């Protein structure tokens, strides 16, 4: 590994000396999208939570915290982020090992690390640390990556993913695995290789089924294939959620008027299944608006990535944006019965969740990349 690596130096991309959009290191188009999305989230939450203002306040506090984290991270120039990447990754892996040895068990899985004054999930850090580490590693190699580089990247992905699967937390390990794969794809590995690996993956699926999955995970897949088989458990979720979405129709039943959600047929309606509440009350056109907001945010993220000035920032911005998209697809796919139940929230809309802070931290990095300019030192 290159010991005297040049991380370059990034400065403010300020156009003028006066106060401008960039003085706060905010990317205003992106910020607009995020604010719009979280506002929509609060409106649905008010309905799904039974018009409980306390719930709204708690969500506002969380959002405030998350936007605060985003703002702070946006102030950090990208060369610092790059320099810290391996350290954050290393610390994250150590903490994951810590979780497995001394972690706190909650709801049957060992995910929390208790530091006495507060508890947190190291797997959340890995959602950022894995893309950072891969971008850091690939940035000093030529692209498209060599076989050796690809192998090492695979290792960087496999170690944290393996540790998180052990907790067990399928949703998070899936996200982290995907973020790494996205970084590789964006780095330009050949499509033939992608095709070959996909086939290999498909061939390995039966192995995963028999040896790699917990009973409850297998149960979820079976339930997905036949929801009626488990009408009290996750099958019930899916049946009710499909009724909620379908009965919404083109225009929806109107805000606060969704019978499925208001009469409590729909479980987890403020958290994982909030999309169904939205679909029931705002209908198909509401969904189109919601998906447009998401597409806008994702397109802006990819635009920032494409404009980024070096390989590290490009790969980081790109893979973080695509990971955000995975949240969306997994959640909507689950709620609308296209994918098995994997407990991931609808990003920035679902109530609560530590993942909100992580997501906003990622957007903070995107903003930092967009609002700093690299001084060209060596190329």
């Amino acid at each position, binding site marked *: 590994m*290159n010991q*005297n690596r*040049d991380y370059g130096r990034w400065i403010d991309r300020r156009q003028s000396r006066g106060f401008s959009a960039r003085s706060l290191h905010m990317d205003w188009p992106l910020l607009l999208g995020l604010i719009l999305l979280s506002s929509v989230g609060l409106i649905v939450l008010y309905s799904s939570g*039974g018009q409980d203002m306390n719930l709204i306040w708690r969500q506002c506090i969380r959002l405030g915290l998350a936007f605060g984290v985003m703002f702070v991270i946006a102030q950090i120039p990208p060369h610092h982020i790059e320099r810290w990447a391996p350290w954050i990754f290393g610390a994250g892996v150590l903490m994951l090992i810590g979780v497995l040895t001394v972690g706190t068990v*909650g*709801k049957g899985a060992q995910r929390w690390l208790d530091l006495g004054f507060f508890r947190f999930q190291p797997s959340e850090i890995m959602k950022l640390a894995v893309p950072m580490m891969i971008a850091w590693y690939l940035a*000093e190699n*030529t*692209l*498209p990556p060599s076989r050796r580089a690809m192998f090492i990247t695979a290792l960087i992905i496999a170690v944290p993913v393996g540790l998180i699967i052990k907790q067990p937390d399928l949703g998070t390990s899936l996200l982290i695995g995907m973020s790494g794969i*996205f970084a590789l*794809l*964006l*780095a*330009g590995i050949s499509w033939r290789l992608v095709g070959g690996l996909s086939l290999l993956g498909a061939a390995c699926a039966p192995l995963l089924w028999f040896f790699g999955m917990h009973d409850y995970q297998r149960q979820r897949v079976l339930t997905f294939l036949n929801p009626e088989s488990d*009408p*009290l*458990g996750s099958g*019930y979720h899916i049946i009710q959620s*499909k*009724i*909620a*979405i*379908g*009965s*919404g*129709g*083109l225009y929806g039943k109107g805000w606060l008027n969704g*019978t*499925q959600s208001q*009469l*409590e*047929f729909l479980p987890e309606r403020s958290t994982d299944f909030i999309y169904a509440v939205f*679909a029931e009350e705002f*209908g*198909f056109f509401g*969904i*189109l608006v919601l*998906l447009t907001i*998401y*597409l806008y945010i*994702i*397109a802006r993220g*990819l635009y920032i*990535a*494409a404009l980024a000035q*070096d*390989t590290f920032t*490009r*790969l980081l911005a*790109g893979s973080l944006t*695509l990971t955000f*998209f995975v949240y969306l*697809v997994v959640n*909507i*796919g689950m709620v*609308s019965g*296209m994918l098995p139940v994997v407990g991931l929230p609808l990003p920035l809309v679902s109530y609560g969740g530590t993942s909100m802070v992580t997501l906003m931290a990622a957007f903070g990095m995107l903003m930092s990349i967009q609002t700093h300019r690299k001084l060209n030192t*060596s*190329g």
Partner: protein
Amino acid sequence: MYSRIAIKDQIREGQLFTSRAITALAVIILILLAIIARMVFLQVIGHEHYTTLSQNNRVSIQPVAPTRGLILDRNGVVLAQNLPTYTLEIIAEQVKDMDQTITELTQIINISDDDIARFNKQVKNKRRFQPIPLRLQLSEEEVARLAVNRHRLPGIEIAARLTRDYPQANLAVHSVGYVSRINEKELSQIDPSNYAATNHIGKQGIEKAYEQQLHGIVGFQKVETNALGRTLRVLERTPPVPGQNITLTLDADLQRTAKQALKGSTGAVVAIDPNNGEILVMASTGDYDPNLFINGIDHKNYNALRTSNAKPLFNRALQGQYPPGSTIKPFVGLAGLEGGTITTKSSVFCRGWHTIKGDERKYRDWKKEGHGHTDLKKSITESCDVFYYDLAQTMGIDRIHEFLSPFGFGQKTGIDIAGEANGILPSTEWKRRVRGKPWYLGETLIAGIGQGYTLTTPLQLAKATAILANRGHTIQPHLLKQITLPNSEYLQYQPDTASTIIELNKTSNWEEVIKGMENVIYGAHGTARHLNRRQPYRIAGKTGTAQVFGIKQDEEYVEEDIGKHLRDHALFVSFAPSDKPQIAVAVIVENGGHGGSVAAPIAGAVIDQYLGGRQ
């Protein structure tokens, strides 16, 4: 470094990335189109179908709680059952004026401020169409009065459900335990779907230890509800699997006898069947009515229980730790025989006290004038202290520890309910580890008569006595006899550890010690000789009087001068019939005075009833 960067073509990499990013965006849009297609399928094509499902056929799935298993004593006496109780519930949205309704209800039946406060709290958290309980456990009369007035009060409902009931109330509360409402902590440890309809969970004793078996498996029913969420009819039903009935080893009658005998004093009785470790009696004074706990005990009652001097929540049989006093002598004597320190012929001259060389302190015998020439048998019969001072001094504490350990002193017995205390069987290693101090010879002497650091629970004493009665076959004391499976077969109790045998070099040593213990009852000078009522079986026993209060060298212990709480604990361990033991009993009476006069009659009553009933 430069060579690396020279190869790295930033512009080409940038172009490659941009092309990949565009591809990604295209794939994203494709996936979003797929999602939109799915939405069209659900919301446009399937709209009518799902609207029908959502409007006309509001099918909801309701969990149905399984019936909790019964708890029975060994003879089939019911210790815990389920009785229907009636609850007054109110559906908020059907009530025009809530305050008015509640005021009217208070005129019909008794409703406390606590009830109203709890109700108001729930009104805020629950949906307006859900019934919320206002008063629990209505009497038949109250139900009748409400039924008459019901037409005037829309929105009130009387719901019947099964509630746990303990017909024997206090009798075996420390063993059976009780159920109470599920709390936050328990909620995170149970399977939420299996407990979806269950409000209560075992909190103590057997109810807690065998929660899984007692609870059963939840059932569910598909019901059709109207637009307000009220059930119209049941469409489909998967019945719950009721909890399994549990038969305990306890004998309720015998338990009652033991409690009766303990009445007026403070203490505990444990009786075990030495053949299999079944606990026949586990009685502790200071008990309470478990029925109070089922729906949440109120503060007044709970504080009364908590602060009572009798410590009713404390199970002395399991959690109480007492010095065993002279009841340990048969075990120490056996250790001496087995280790070759003494023989059955060895004799010590007891002049009423014992001294260690170089120490002025007198280690007194309970009998001031001494027992004279004393051998092992006499030392047990008359409970001579000097004999054991001498024996312990020769053996040393560690050899005593080593021999007594397999009898279970100083260790949890592994009984199948929680909360057991450890007890202490001291050794030099123990004192260094726990107290951080070296062991002194004087401490060995008093350990030889079961004083000093040594502590046992009544259960441990009963277990050790049972092992002695068994001539070395160890047992695991337990409360579960069998579980009745759904197919009406029985699942018998299986101990965690297989029975082992304490092997002696000379098996006749067992008989030597047991002969001494028989003499305690049948000898002319036996310390429990009034137990000899010419029963058709022979009892072997040993009295004990454990000091609570240290007396100074030159003072005398005068019972009347000392406050009751500082008086000696009275103990008695025994088993019968001595040749083919069927029951082993340990009794402790706190501050009771002499073991022979206070504790022995209690054990006698239990043994006589148990064996008398059989022969």
